[in-house]
């Protein structure tokens, strides 16, 4: 009040200030409520990760205790998993598969998306719809034909066998096509006049302009392949060809599941996804927003 009277001395100004204070209080309440909701959401998301890390630091006899802080924390599990040669092999397998699949998707999805977006040719719409319609078929239905195909081509238990279904995706093609819509044709025509051929126009002009979309796609594809379970489990036979998720599920023996080791492996295997995310995160947020707008 004293501030108000100092400002003008008029009662009107004082009430104005009072009202604005009240409004401010209400705003603050809203803010606190919002933070609480976000905090709860964050808690729910962090809980499994916290348990994963906590379990990885426990001795086997303590695993079924729900306490978050281990009674006798140990890094024994980490040394075991890292010294056990199998995990290292699976890690390398997963990295190779996720990287190659990601690069392949970035290249082919955007190539096809660009062509469908920027070129007018007969049957273009049919091709696009055909690609989109594959999104409607669930993986579970495709697994058997894939398996039969892999068997007849001799791809079982190989990198190629694990990777081939995901080297190109309808989703990625669709995403990239939508993003290329936002690239004005004038850029491409200017490049055509400058003397670039069609491939160079795509690679040097169009691709740099959709970097956010490429980053988003890179994260989606990398994560998708890094965590893929069903198909790698089916197509691989030998322990050496396992990927991390497949390998982890087999930790322990027939009777006992070694949760502390599975959680340790899982904790280690989140590292690459974290790295990929940290590299691309400034793009992905923009990418997801833009994908949402375009969708």
């Amino acid at each position, binding site marked *: 009040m004293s501030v108000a009277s100092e400002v003008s001395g008029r009662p009107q100004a004082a009430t104005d200030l009072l009202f604005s204070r009240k409004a401010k209080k209400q705003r603050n309440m809203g803010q606190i409520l919002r933070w609480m909701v976000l905090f709860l959401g964050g808690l729910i998301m962090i809980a499994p990760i916290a348990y994963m890390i906590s379990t990885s630091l426990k001795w086997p006899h303590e695993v079924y205790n729900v306490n978050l802080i281990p009674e006798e924390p140990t890094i024994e599990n980490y040394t075991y998993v890292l010294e056990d040669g199998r995990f290292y092999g699976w890690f390398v397998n997963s990295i190779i598969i996720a990287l190659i699949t990601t690069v392949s998707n970035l290249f082919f999805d955007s190539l096809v998306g660009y062509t469908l977006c920027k070129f007018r040719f007969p049957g273009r719409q049919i091709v696009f719809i055909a690609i989109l319609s594959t999104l409607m078929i669930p993986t579970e239905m495709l697994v058997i034909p894939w398996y039969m195909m892999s068997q007849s081509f001799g791809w079982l238990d190989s990198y190629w066998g694990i990777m081939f279904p995901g080297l190109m995706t309808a989703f990625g093609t669709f995403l990239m096509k939508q993003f290329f819509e936002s690239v*004005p044709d004038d850029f491409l*025509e*200017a*490049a*055509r*006049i*400058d003397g*670039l051929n069609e491939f160079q126009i795509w690679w040097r002009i169009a691709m*740099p302009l959709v970097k956010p979309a490429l980053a988003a796609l890179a994260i989606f594809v990398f994560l998708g392949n890094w965590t893929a379970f069903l198909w790698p489990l089916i197509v691989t036979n030998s322990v050496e060809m396992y990927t991390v998720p497949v390998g982890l599920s087999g930790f322990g023996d027939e009777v006992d599941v070694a949760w502390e080791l599975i959680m340790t492996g899982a904790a280690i295997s989140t590292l690459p996804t974290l790295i990929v995310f940290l590299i691309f995160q400034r793009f992905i947020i923009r990418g997801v927003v833009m994908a949402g707008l375009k969708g």
Partner: protein
Amino acid sequence: MADLSLKKLTKAYGQVEVLHGIDLDISDGEFVVFVGPSGCGKSTSLRMIAGLEEITGGEIWIDGRMVNNLEPKERDIAMVFQNYAIYPHMTVRKNIAFGLWNAPMSKSEKSARIEEVARVLDMDNLLDRKPSQLSGGQRQRVAIGRAMVRNPAVFLFDEPLSNLDAQLRTQMRLEIKKLHQKVGNTIIFVTHDQVEAMTLADRIVIMKDGFIQQIGTPEEVFHNPVNAFVAQFIGAPSMNMLEATGNGQDLSLRNGEKLPLQVTTLTGQKLLVGIRPDDLVLHPETPLITGNISVREPLGSETLIYVSSSHGEIVARVPGKDAPRVGEEVHLGANPDSLHVFDAESGAALV
């Protein structure tokens, strides 16, 4: 540098023909402006010359070569787009370098050429900036630089100034004209703005609905328009059109006023009498038009007055000093020599 000719050029999208046989010869070093309302086919013609649009019929010749089946890069042309189309992910230097993509030059020759172009366009200090750090006018200059660096036979400009604000547009217009005087290449410039067309062109090509209406110097199309469309399109404000009827040696206006004619008309022929706002004078000895002023637009040295008369709304350009007020009754007249007479049906000029 080269001549360019269009021979019976047509363009159709499916069954719809949008360009109906364009014939045009442009000589070496000429600055030609295509002008017309939107949808008249001016940009389509330009894009066909560039090779960005397929040719339905007819031929395009550049420098003695028929280029119908050549790729854009083989036609020895360069184009500047309305929205600049400079690559946003590259520096100015790289953008300009792209113009030399296919040039058989060494790296040092290329960079010398880039520096030279930058100097001519007065942007040496901008070479290492990204387009996002440039103003609209600077971006347009980069686009022009990318076109210039190759020293093409023909420059194509597709409404390059329409994204700039009024002041910058006037400035860039002047710069483009100076540039043409300096480098002397053949230029084809597309615009919908008749002021741009008048100020820039050696010759203006006025188009409407896929037909060329008139080709001529700015003076020709202004003083001797071949039809009512050209007469109204060129000049701002537009030419006033008064309905009239011909009676052989003279014509009568709607208000019964009779005017002598230099040509003979059929009796009862419907005519349009065109008078430029500049040719109308206040308080003449024989008034043609009488009416009250409904709107006035002071422009400083002169004032536009809009007069509601028996001929409809008539606009006149009068001296700015002591211009009549809104609501005032005025009499307007014109020198008979400055009148244009058109056939009302075909629009063709009779005088």
